């Protein structure tokens, strides 16, 4: 069985500072991993995905994530936060069409 754990329910950063949202997963197989973002009262938007190609994945809006098999992690980073990054972020592990969502991390960006 696969599962995903987002280690922080809430992260607060100042505008212009780095963002780190942590995610650990467990999976019996080589998983696909995703990060989705949900802005307030909006749907889910795919930020980036890992599907067994390059371990460093670049996504939209300057986000990237690194797949580390030894640490079973897929942390999401961005060098410099922008006010528009404030949203809920979901780490997702997928195996054969079975997607498991993390509980979400709410990112707050302070001016």
């Amino acid at each position, binding site marked *: 069985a696969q599962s995903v754990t987002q280690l922080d329910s809430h992260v607060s950063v100042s505008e212009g500072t780095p963002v780190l949202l942590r995610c650990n997963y467990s999976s019996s197989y080589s998983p*696909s991993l*995703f990060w*989705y973002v*949900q802005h307030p009262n*909006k*749907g*889910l938007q*795919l930020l980036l*995905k890992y*599907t067994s190609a390059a371990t460093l994945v670049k996504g939209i809006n300057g986000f990237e994530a690194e797949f580390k098999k030894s640490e079973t992690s897929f942390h999401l980073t961005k060098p410099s936060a922008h006010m528009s990054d404030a949203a*809920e972020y*979901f780490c997702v592990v*997928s*195996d*054969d*069409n*079975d*997607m*498991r*969502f993390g*509980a*979400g991390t*709410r990112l707050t960006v302070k001016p």
Partner: protein
Amino acid sequence: DTAVSQTPKYLVTQMGNDKSIKCEQNLGHDTMYWYKQDSKKFLKIMFSYNNKELIINETVPNRFSPKSPDKAHLNLHINSLELGDSAVYFCASSRRGESEQFFGPGTRLTVL
């Protein structure tokens, strides 16, 4: 050119009513899904369906039933609505054998 669409966007109804939420995808995908997002933002799979197989999350009450008139649609019917059904419901679709799912904008259901 919306890929996955849901109607309505908002649905407010009384306890005990029966309601439906529609989902359509124009991506030519084989598999469609329904998720429930609770008040704490956690997403849980409810159903996955392709033209051969319906997989139901065993925790979903049988008041919920998916209906697929064709490959591009998977509607969600809910009978005898309860207060605890209030949530945001997301439809999604994927190509068979591929892990990435494309999500609709969500339907916010409020049961009074």
